[in-house]
């Protein structure tokens, strides 16, 4: 197996980086931190992606969209590989991506919880939501539900302006 890093790879990477997330179309897969690697193996473009959630049904669409974008750009025999380790974290969403989320009315996630070895601590009292209301900027917000329309989003409400909004969950 030969692996090359050439101008072709750079161009293929540039194409892959334009593909957007099917559920959060304001973000590219690169913004979301799902796009792990674009390389050339034996003359074929190989794209590696990581699922945000184990059951994320958008993985199929991401794969199809990547193949479609690269084939439209002239690449043949594109292969999309899944990378499971290390598991995706919301910390991987780029600064650029966070700005685009806010602009679209979705609050970006706060820092993901740190894992320590041993039993996972039980959290009986939900932590207060972190981050600001994407509409008015107030940090006085509350949780409506920890679960939203997709696996990666929670429902919040701003106490200052009264508007409900979604936030990408910290994971």
């Amino acid at each position, binding site marked *: 197996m030969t692996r090359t890093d050439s101008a072709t790879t750079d161009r293929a990477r540039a194409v892959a980086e334009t593909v957007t997330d099917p559920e959060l179309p304001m973000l590219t897969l690169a913004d979301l931190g799902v796009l792990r690697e674009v390389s050339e193996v034996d003359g074929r473009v190989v794209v590696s992606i990581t*699922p945000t959630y184990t059951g994320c049904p958008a993985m199929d669409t991401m794969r*199809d969209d990547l193949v479609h974008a690269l084939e439209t750009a002239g690449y043949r025999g594109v292969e999309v590989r899944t990378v*499971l380790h290390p598991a995706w974290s919301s910390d991987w969403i780029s600064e650029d991506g966070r700005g685009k989320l806010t602009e679209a009315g979705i609050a970006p996630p706060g820092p993901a919880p740190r894992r320590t070895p041993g039993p996972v601590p039980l959290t*009986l009292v939900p932590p207060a939501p972190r981050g600001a209301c994407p509409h008015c900027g107030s940090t006085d917000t509350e949780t*409506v539900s920890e679960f939203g329309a997709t696996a990666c989003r929670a429902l919040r409400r701003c106490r200052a302006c009264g508007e409900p909004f979604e936030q990408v969950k910290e994971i």
Partner: protein
Amino acid sequence: MSFDNAFEGLVEAGEDARWAFGTGFEDPLSGVDTTVPSDVDGADLAAYCLMLGDDALVFSHRLQQWCTNAPELEEEVALANIGLDLLGQARLLLARAGRADPVSPGRGEDSYAFFRDEHEFRNVRLAELERGDFGELIARLLVFSTWRLALFQALTASRDPVLAAVAAKGVKELTYHRDHAARWAVRLGDGTSSSRDRLSAGLAEIWPYVPELFVPHEVEARMAEARVGADPAAARAEFDDVVGRVLAAATLTRPEVAPRAGVSGRTGRDGVHTEAMGYLLAELQSVARTHPEATW
């Protein structure tokens, strides 16, 4: 791009692959190195992954039965999300079983889910029990996610890198599943007399199936010994501690009911299930079996 009819755009068509849920991408382990470590028994690893995968598949089926039945919209969304996480875990584990199995190498997730009979399913009986009321659901979700989280936390150190990666991701998800169930348990237990009664009844209903969770099947014992699997008996202390704290906050006590015996000591892990399992599989499998060649 234009199409002669509205449906053409929805299916994958060669280079024009585009929006197409459910077509093409059928292998959740596509591109993942699934080589079984040389000193690990492939048949045991496959059997072990089926156990963990079946627990998730069968309970996710029970959770999705709450769609349109939950007491409020937010809860409906929550249960669907939790069910989807578990279904995702099941897909990876069943696919992992197929890659590890020396008898039927490459058997796919769909084949395991839709074309095995009841005695071939290895899930614990707790997962399959008939859907009860909301009190029963919260009791079962609390027990299931507390138990599974303890197992998965141990599995993050598995010598099978695929299992370790699935577990590391699963820990993040099971953490919020358990917190969600625990918070509801406190609200119901320390709530009205009606909510308290229903949670108590739910706990009493499922508690006979709790001891089974901690009795290692011989495959589980061998896999734990080989540091590939997690010893369920070792998860008991954490389970007792967490559930004890939740019940204390809910002002409830652990039910005192006798364990539900298996048949000659054989239970879910041996393929011996309760009456509810046949009905569940009929619903889960009938479409795939009626149209075995169908694609959608």
